[in-house]
């Protein structure tokens, strides 16, 4: 996390606000956890106080020759109380809190998930937002538990400290002052050494990342071949050594500072104060101001109190640290989707029209997130520029063009994953911004180029959600048939109930790229929408399989509207209309024959692709 290394100054109000916010979340999602934790802190505080009072009393009693039966009765009472405390402690820390933490985790994640899904994809294109988001996902629930632990610890320390402090005041106020002063000193030292550590981590962070990368290169199978057939090994080892040397010199540099702040400033100083307290108490003993029992009791108490106090003060620093993290979590929750709409009843598809649509990714992501500096003019590259097109019910449309011509972007706009930067998209004549995005997307079935297969059953993957046997069975089978998957299906052990991927199920099946693509296509058939979009539906297939699949798709979509994208021109011949894209613009429109006759870009591209086949065929004939 690059952002962790920045250490912004936070006003106290923010720190308190953020920590309270997190506590509020915990109390809301897992109230039992909240109260059980607080109770745990109190109980241990009382236990610690009781130990202090008991020891104090005992030592004094021995010195002055007290009453043994009374000591016995007292001890048995304390023992009984301790047994109860440990029972609660065991139940809380060994069994119950882990379950409650799970509950918190799940509730918080559910909130984050729903939020994440509602947000525009454009946010995900912004690396900074994305980093924060992944961080919020991974870290927020853990941070919630840290906050709870800190608060819990605070309860414990405050109860324990106030008892000890009251006790020591009854003996000698002067001793209490020594403790306070040395604790304040300890906090300063720990603050400074934290700073040293922080600076060290910050400076060493790139080095750690670099080593992490090199580690990855050696253990991921992806790189194995490359390393074996080339001499990259030597280069990588050189990098490793250089990084390691830098790491070592940093360790020494910061080690020295740390030695001064913590080693000398705190650990050695702590020893000195310990002896000072002993000397002071010896003085009191010699002057007859305290008895032997009191002498030992005070020293024990003072040393213990010093520990509690520096923990207590250190506790405050932790809230500031928590606050930094919580801030990011809150910021994520505060982010609002910009792609919204009111109308949830979407009429049946008749036409879809792009009117002077332009779109730029940079502008879209930057404009939305935190109003960050807009990218300078020359950096804005428009993915789509002034696009006009119309699709009517029953049309077969092909979108063609080279890599980066804007084909996939067009589909994303059609699906309203992004809103155009300029111009408008009309569905049945109504701007799609008026429609609720979820409801609108239900009307269009899409296979993306980078479709995903989920770790679920074949049926669930096809239905794209929960599968109900009596309702969905026919539909799933028919869709798989249409997507040319039946042959493979026959070989699966549990038919459509076979689990895909081995992620959780050792009996799961890993499909090849082509087979996965067919399942993704079946998904669209199962949706049975009047309009279907296919983004390079056959890219993972070899020529024979591609041929079969295309035949099948064409056969089963006769009455539907189909938009397909391809950079292989072979499939475009059957389209009613072809839109040829070049650097974000529509450069040619027409049927295959019209465009060939026109002898423009499309014709050129088609010729290049077919050239080899053509010349060979001609020489043969």
């Amino acid at each position, binding site marked *: 996390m690059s952002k962790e290394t920045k250490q912004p100054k936070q006003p106290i109000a923010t720190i308190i606000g953020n920590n309270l916010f997190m506590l509020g979340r915990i109390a809301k999602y897992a109230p039992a956890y909240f109260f059980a934790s607080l109770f745990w802190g109190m109980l241990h505080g009382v236990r610690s106080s009781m130990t202090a009072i008991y020891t104090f009393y*005992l030592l004094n009693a021995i010195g002055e020759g007290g009453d043994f039966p009374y000591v016995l009765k007292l001890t048995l009472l304390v023992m009984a109380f301790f047994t109860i405390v440990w029972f609660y402690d065991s139940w809380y820390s060994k069994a119950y809190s882990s379950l409650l933490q799970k509950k918190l985790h799940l509730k918080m994640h559910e909130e984050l998930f729903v939020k994440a899904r509602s947000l525009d994809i454009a946010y*995900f294109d912004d690396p900074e937002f994305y980093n924060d988001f992944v961080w919020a996902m991974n870290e927020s629930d853990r941070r919630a538990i840290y906050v709870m632990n800190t608060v819990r610890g605070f309860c414990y320390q405050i109860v324990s400290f106030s008892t000890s402090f009251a006790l020591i005041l009854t003996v000698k106020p002067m001793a209490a002052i020594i403790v306070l002063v040395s604790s304040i000193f300890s906090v300063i030292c720990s603050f400074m050494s934290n700073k040293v550590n922080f600076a060290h981590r910050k400076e060493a962070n790139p080095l750690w990342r670099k080593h992490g990368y090199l580690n990855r290169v050696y253990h991921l199978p992806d790189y194995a071949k*490359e390393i074996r057939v080339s001499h990259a090994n030597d280069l990588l080892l*050189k990098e490793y050594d250089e990084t390691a040397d830098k790491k070592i010199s940093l360790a020494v540099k910061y080690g020295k500072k740390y030695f001064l702040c913590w080693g000398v400033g705190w650990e050695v100083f702590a020893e000195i104060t310990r002896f000072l307290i002993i000397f002071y108490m010896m003085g009191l003993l010699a002057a007859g101001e305290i008895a032997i029992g009191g002498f030992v009791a005070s020293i024990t108490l003072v040393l213990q109190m010093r520990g509690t106090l520096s923990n207590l003060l250190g506790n405050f620093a932790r809230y500031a640290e928590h606050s930094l993290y919580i801030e990011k979590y809150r910021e994520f929750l505060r982010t609002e989707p910009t792609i919204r709409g009111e109308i949830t009843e979407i009429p049946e598809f008749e036409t879809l029209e792009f009117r002077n649509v332009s779109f730029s990714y940079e502008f879209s992501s930057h404009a939305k997130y935190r109003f960050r500096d807009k990218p300078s003019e020359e950096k804005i590259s428009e993915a789509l520029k002034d696009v006009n097109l119309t699709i009517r019910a029953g049309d077969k449309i092909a979108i063609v063009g080279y*890599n980066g011509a804007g084909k996939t972007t067009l589909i994303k706009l059609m699906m309203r994953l992004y809103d155009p930067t300029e111009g408008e998209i009309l569905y049945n004549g109504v701007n799609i911004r008026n429609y609720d995005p979820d409801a609108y997307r239900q009307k269009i079935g899409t296979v993306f180029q980078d479709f995903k297969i989920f770790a679920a059953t074949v049926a669930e993957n096809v239905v794209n*959600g929960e599968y109900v046997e009596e309702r969905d069975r026919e539909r799933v089978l028919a869709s798989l048939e249409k997507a040319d998957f039946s042959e493979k299906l026959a070989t699966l052990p549990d038919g459509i109930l076979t689990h895909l991927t081995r992620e959780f199920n050792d009996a799961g099946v890993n499909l090849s790229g082509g087979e996965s693509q067919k399942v993704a296509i079946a998904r669209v058939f199962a949706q049975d929408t009047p309009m279907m979009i296919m983004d390079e539906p056959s890219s993972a297939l070899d020529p*024979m399989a591609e041929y079969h699949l295309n035949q099948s798709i064409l056969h089963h979509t006769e009455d539907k509207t189909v938009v397909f994208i391809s950079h292989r021109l072979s499939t475009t011949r059957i389209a009613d209309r072809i839109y040829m894209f070049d650097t974000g613009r529509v450069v040619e429109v027409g049927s295959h024959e019209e465009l060939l006759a026109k002898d423009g870009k499309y014709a050129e591209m088609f010729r290049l692709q077919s050239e080899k086949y053509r010349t060979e065929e001609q020489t043969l004939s």
Partner: protein
Amino acid sequence: MKQPKDKKDKKKKEKKVSLKRTWQNNLFALREIGKASPFYLIVYLSSTVIYGLLEFFTGAYLLRKIVNSVEVGEELSGIVMYVAVLMAVTVVSYLVLNWFWHVISPKMQQKIAMQIQKELFAKASEVELGCYENPAFYDKYVRAMDEASYRVSQVLDTLDTLLSHIITTSANSFLLFFIDPWLMVFACIPLFLGFIKKKESKISHDWSVARKSTERRVWYVQRTFYLSDYAKEMRIGGMYRLMLRDLRESYRVFRDLTNKYGLKVTLLSTLRHFGLDVLTVFGATLYAVWSTMYLGPANGGMSVGDCVVVIGSISTVSYSLNYIVDTLTQFHEHALFLEDVRYFLDYQPTIVGGERIASEDGGELRVEHVSFRYDGAEKDTLEDISFTLKKGERLALVGSNGSGKTTLVKLLLRLYDPKEGEILLNGVNIKEMTLDSYRDRFGTVFQDFKLFSLSVRENVLLREPREGDEELVIRALKESGAYERVMRLPKGLDTVLTREFDDEGANLSVGEQQKLSLARVFAENTPFVILDEPSSALDPIAEYTMFENMMRATEGRSVIFISHRLSSAVLADRVILMDEGKIAEIGTHEELLARGGKYAEMFSRQAENYLGSEVTDNE
């Protein structure tokens, strides 16, 4: 359902490491540390001993001394001198110890980590590729890589903790024993609690095993929501509801498991704390108080000073003893992880080179009756393959997905050895040549090529840049069509790829990356060139120019290229059509077309898409 059970059993078996092996594995870690610096180990452990002794002498022992001397009525000035001297010694020792801990030690730790990491890297680049495909081996390997340096330092850490507890326990026990031998009864209670502890951790372990699969499920759901790959699918379908349902169900599973295991663990843990924190501590305290109050020093009981020491030390002893039991199980855990590390480091690669140096200008490559089967596969991936690649010949390998093209290439590069048959370079079995010299004769672009997070220059050369490499790199980039793009990068040839480590680094598109990896082949003038689907990420125009360039630039070199677009096979001198691991057809493009076999069928099928009716007309 049978499979997972087997797997679990296996894991359990793996989990057992004999006592002897535990000892050896931990010793192995200490030897690794010794290799990096023999003195460090000794100094480190001595520092612990000194620290432990100081703690004891400035703690319970000092208090006892003061109280006893006051009771006896000694002059206080004597004891003040004693405390002052002790203070001076302590302060000086602490200065030295802290210097060692904060300055010397971190540096040494880094060196040790480096030492073991480099041993692992060396091994990783040496083991054969098959190891990556064997899940059991690969699991161990990943764990070894991840854990090794951490575990090695942990062994030292645990040893250190053990030592410090032994010192604390023995010093304090000695004192207690000296005061009253009966006190040892209380001090020994924690030792009997070991049984409870063992039972408790067994249940906890079972519990966490039972949770595992559900936890993995939760992780997966989490991933589908945060990986941007899934972002589109999650928005357009109803899949997210299924995912949220899984999430809610997982809580039910966790709750049921808590009900099943929670109470048992709670009771055992309470019992353990009762023994340790209640019975031992208060038992000894009561005994000491009784001995002082009823008997008194005069009747063989304890003095006030002794009693004070007992109250102070008994919990120290009982805790330290408890920790000693813990550290022993920690050594066992380290041994489990180190087992993987040692297994990996001791592994002997099966693909090793011979003595001979492969001829610099290549020659004739002959494949004779080669068959190959991946470990654990049910049938051969390659079956009885024979062909000859003449010097300077261009060979196209075509065939449908899974027909064995890429596997054949891996055999040619000796990433695998054939199960049967042999591969000969100029009549000499390639196993007789050194691995380096043989592989150096090949320039290869894999289908799943990888670029490294290094400079463009280094990525093209894949070796240490030398004087005069500049022109070589530029020429190679020009030939692969990447030159213009590279020159537009902020630092030209010295631009580091990916932004991961360099803010001025460059993120290239897949097509650009592929061009860069092609430049590698042009930069080294190897006699053999292998291209595995070099055009898959390129659009038709880019593909066309790429092939033209490639043919020109590799003039005189032997080339094998794989493509499933048959249009490019036309460029080859000869074509091999592979089908289900066998050579189905071999010959020139014209010969194969004339033969009217499978190749001809595939070719016309692909051509049909472009030429439509013309093809049928011609026929």
